[in-house]
């Protein structure tokens, strides 16, 4: 079976300093892959290189077999990659509803997402519908950006540190939401350093360190191997 998203040999650099050294991982349709690593390990850079916000120096990004490496961000998004950046980037002077509308378009994910469906799956956004997105709390903005990316019906959703800087109660809500999306069949790659949060929602784990994947395996396997955590995740 062809992987939904297959990244291989991905190299990327900021100017002269290379950050990614041949990143390689596959994501099967419907699974939630946790991409774990310390700050600066290359999680966000991997996502930016996949989404086209940073042009990779080499390697392949195959989405359902189609190579997207180096394409323009809007083409990659239309091909089916939904990217939720770490700093959320809601449109602050658009209402919640308008943020969703701007992103609405057909896509390969076949989720039939529209504004009404988004409000059904994200009921916490319903009372905020007409509020300016810039006035939402961090957790609300996080929910909104996830919903906004889904509006493009992506084949794969890249979530960059969705739990970062949020209160434990909100983190739990986001965890519930990611599980709900997985049950709906959404394919997700989740970049995180919060391993407790990650292990609660992921089906498989890939660990990144110094710009390369250093460990891959199932969630149980990861739990059973504390040396991986000690070596690559704890500060």
């Amino acid at each position: 079976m062809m992987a939904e998203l297959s990244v291989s040999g991905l190299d990327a650099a900021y100017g002269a300093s290379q950050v990614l050294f041949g990143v390689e991982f596959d994501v099967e349709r419907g699974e939630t892959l946790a991409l774990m690593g310390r700050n600066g390990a290359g999680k966000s850079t991997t996502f930016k290189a996949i989404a086209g916000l940073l042009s990779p120096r080499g390697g392949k990004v195959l989405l359902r077999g189609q190579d997207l490496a180096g394409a323009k961000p809007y083409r990659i998004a239309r091909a089916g990659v939904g990217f939720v950046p770490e700093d959320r980037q809601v449109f602050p002077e658009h209402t919640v509803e308008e943020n969703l509308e701007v992103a609405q378009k057909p896509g390969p994910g076949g989720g039939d997402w529209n504004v009404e469906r988004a409000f059904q799956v994200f009921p916490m956004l319903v009372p905020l519908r007409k509020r300016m997105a810039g006035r939402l709390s961090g957790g609300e903005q996080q929910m909104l950006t996830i919903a906004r990316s889904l509006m493009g019906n992506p084949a794969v959703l890249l979530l960059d540190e969705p739990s970062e800087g949020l209160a434990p109660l909100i983190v739990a809500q986001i965890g519930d939401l990611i599980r709900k999306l997985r049950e709906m069949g959404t394919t997700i790659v989740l970049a995180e350093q919060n391993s407790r949060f990650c292990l609660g929602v992921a089906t498989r784990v890939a660990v990144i360190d110094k710009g390369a994947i250093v460990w891959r395996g199932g969630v149980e396997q990861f739990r059973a191997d504390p040396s991986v955590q000690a070596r690559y995740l704890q500060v």
Partner: protein
Amino acid sequence: MDLGELASCLGSASCVVTQVSAGLTIGLLIFLVASGLTLIFGVLGLVNFAHGTLYMLGSYFALTAYGTTGSFLAAVGAGAFGVALVGLLMERFLLSRIYGTDVLMQLLVCYAIILILDDVVKIVWGGDFLKMDLPDAFRRPPVIIAGGIVPYYYVILFAITAAIAVILAWGMGRTRFGRTVRAAAVNPGMVGALGINTTAVFAAVFAIGSLLAGLAGALSAPIRSVVPGAGVSILIESFIVTVIGGMGSIWGALIASLLIGFTRSFGSIGFPLFTEGMMFLMMALVLLVKPSGLAGKPHA
């Protein structure tokens, strides 16, 4: 300076009606040009110094189309859409390469465009003052309101420009395209990551801004003289309007345009030698009180 004259005008309903109608008409024509300028600046971050030249081209296109077809509608269409096309080519081949550069570079490229297009106009249409005849349909007796004389064409102009202002405000605020444009103005990277071709959005915004300038040029061809370099004075007025209204704000541009229109119409009675100076004085006052303009955001 003749403030007594101004006071007696303000005391007479007919004089007020005449001057208000003139001020509204001038103001709304400036608004068409200034709204395009402020739209392009707000979304693309480009100060289009060649915007007045697009206005001038609109007048010439209208003149020629009217001369060959005799249809006012064809004249306005040629001015608006012809200039939209010129603007689109300008954006694609020249200006899109200087987005994000410093304003000196933008000034240089736009100034080159101004000089080239002024010369092209001189070659094609000659350097003399030209005037477009008022179509027969608009040669009607003026409308009299409270004893004040309002030329019939002013009423037409007012209706068209007011409709455009409403369409523009509605389009930017209430349509999906308008929302996308506003989002792309704030965060083009994120808009692109949501699958929207921002390059195409930017080109469309520039074409719309150009269309507005061309439309204003076409509409003013029967009442203002058409001459090479005619773009400069309207460009200066448009800049005053965008500064007073706040760079990037359509509503600010509307209020400021009307302010400038009334300053011109009432100023021509009260202080005919100082109307231009008064516009700059108003700009200076607004900048002192609110440096970002009436409707502008700080550091926008």
